[in-house]
């Protein structure tokens, strides 16, 4: 036990030896540490969860304001969302379509790039990969603004296409990262033995590489999809008047009149995220790829 370190006492300085000879002080020391770390950790855990819970409870209010606790409970705002908010339903569908398209394109481009680069040690390969990951660190609003300037210069009007391009630039890094990490964990001798047994490159990719990295690709695609669905900074600059994505609509709703429907939309998004998250944790072990 750490509390009884007899053989090491010769190495310990005088004040510490006093601390050891006083079991009460040492147990107090241990308990104060456990208490402080435990309390702060619990506060952090509660802080992580509380806002989500509060939003979900608020979304079931029967009142017209975002009062918490609500004066009464009902599902009226969810009904309002479903029955007379076509603009929000449209925005939701547009965001889902945009995120799906951007994710599909990003997966093709990023998985190919990761396959080419992940296992190379050369400086230029590392540099290229760092370039592909750079949008993660750059302020996304600056990326949006720079792309707007490019499209203005090229006299290409803003459209759904420009929006997709912006989103691919933002979410590709996630897929490059998870796929590369997965490729690095892969045992190279599996590939070599497949090659030496005469399998063609395409056959090896289909039967060995792809099954081994599918979890990394799936995790990256999921994270990328959510990042695209949530993006405001790039959409703000690149969407045309007709393409109103959901996060921007919500941003406007919250900024202008604090519509209670924003709480109902949040409730829907939280539920969908939670379900997808649990499924993806089972299928792809998503939390491992986020670290």
């Amino acid at each position, binding site marked *: 036990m750490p509390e009884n370190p007899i053989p090491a006492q010769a190495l310990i300085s005088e004040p510490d030896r006093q*601390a050891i000879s006083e079991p009460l002080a040492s147990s107090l020391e241990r308990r104060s540490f456990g208490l402080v770390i435990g309390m702060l950790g619990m506060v952090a855990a509660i802080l992580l969860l509380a806002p989500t819970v509060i939003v979900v409870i608020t979304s079931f209010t029967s009142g017209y304001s975002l009062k918490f606790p609500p004066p009464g409970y009902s599902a009226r705002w969810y009904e309002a969302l479903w029955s007379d908010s076509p603009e929000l339903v449209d925005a939701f569908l547009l965001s889902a379509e945009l995120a799906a398209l951007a994710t599909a394109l990003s997966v093709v481009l990023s998985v190919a*790039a990761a396959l080419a680069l992940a296992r*190379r040690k050369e400086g230029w390969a590392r540099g290229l990969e760092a370039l592909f990951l750079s949008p993660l660190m750059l302020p996304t609003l600056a990326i949006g603004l720079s792309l707007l300037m490019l499209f203005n210069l090229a006299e290409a009007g803003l459209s759904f296409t420009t929006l997709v391009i912006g989103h691919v630039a933002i979410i590709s890094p996630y897929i490059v990262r998870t796929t590369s990490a997965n490729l690095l964990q892969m045992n190279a001798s599996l590939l070599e033995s497949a090659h030496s047994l005469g399998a063609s490159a395409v056959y090896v990719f289909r039967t060995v590489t792809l099954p081994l990295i599918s979890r990394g690709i799936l995790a990256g695609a999921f994270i990328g999809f959510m990042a695209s669905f949530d993006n405001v900074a790039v959409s703000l600059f690149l969407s045309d008047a007709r393409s109103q994505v959901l996060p921007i609509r919500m941003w406007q709703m919250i900024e202008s009149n604090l519509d209670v429907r924003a709480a109902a939309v949040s409730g829907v998004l939280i539920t969908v995220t939670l379900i997808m998250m649990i499924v993806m944790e089972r299928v792809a072990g998503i939390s491992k790829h986020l670290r």
Partner: protein
Amino acid sequence: MKTQSVAPRSGSPLALSVPLGIFFVGFVFVPMLLLAYVSLFEDMEMTRHGFSQYVKFLSDGFNLGILGSTLLLGLKVSILCTLLGFPLAYLYVQIPGRWQGPLMLLIVLPLLTSSVVRTFAWVVILGRQGIVNTAMANLGWIQEPVKLLYTPGAVAVALAQIELPLMVLPLITALMNCDRNLRDASLALGAGHWRTFWKITVPLSMPGLLAGGLLVFASSVSAFVTQTLVGGGQQIFMPYYMYQQAIQANNYPFAAAIAMLLLVCVLAVVVTVNALGRRNSGFVHA
């Protein structure tokens, strides 16, 4: 030899990285150069070259105040995230395995939940009829609702909560990579839990702390949604200022200069912290 040309170690031809490479050159690299180029025009019509946009920004107290408060916000959020994130990561590593799954879900779920939703949660919490004001009124501490939303403290706290997972995840990885024996040895030699924490655990988890700190800093200085919704119209940060100058004022050169300055500041912090981390890791292994 034939096999050399197809990179025998990876089995994947280099050509596979070309499509994404072209995309990045066209839609990330060139636009960034264009951004830098546009920032070097003196007038809104973009006819004369010069550094006047930067001079204009850096010689004006109002503009410098915005830059300062943005960087200060990033620093405050990083410190708050460290204070809360370290104990949480430590707790995660210590608790029994069957509790780790649910706790990980708790940490990751907010990260994947829309940041607009998470920001909206803080608007509800800090509002005049929000839970904080209700609780304080019920306890008799206040007579009338206090203004919590649209204050500098509110932005920092809300962002710290929103970015907390970005700090906790690298820290968990770093703590898991720490050799447990070092801590046990320190305790067995009588260093006590606090001293072991400061002298062993914290230095050994420095790579995770720096990585998490950078992620938190970079995302909080450019967190447009939270800054505008929780900060309100009276506090302006760099991202909104850039948006306003570009879209509302149509002053692209000035907006580009704002973007470049924010970019340079973020990169400077990243480079400095990375250099610090390299020196630090040398110290730990020595």
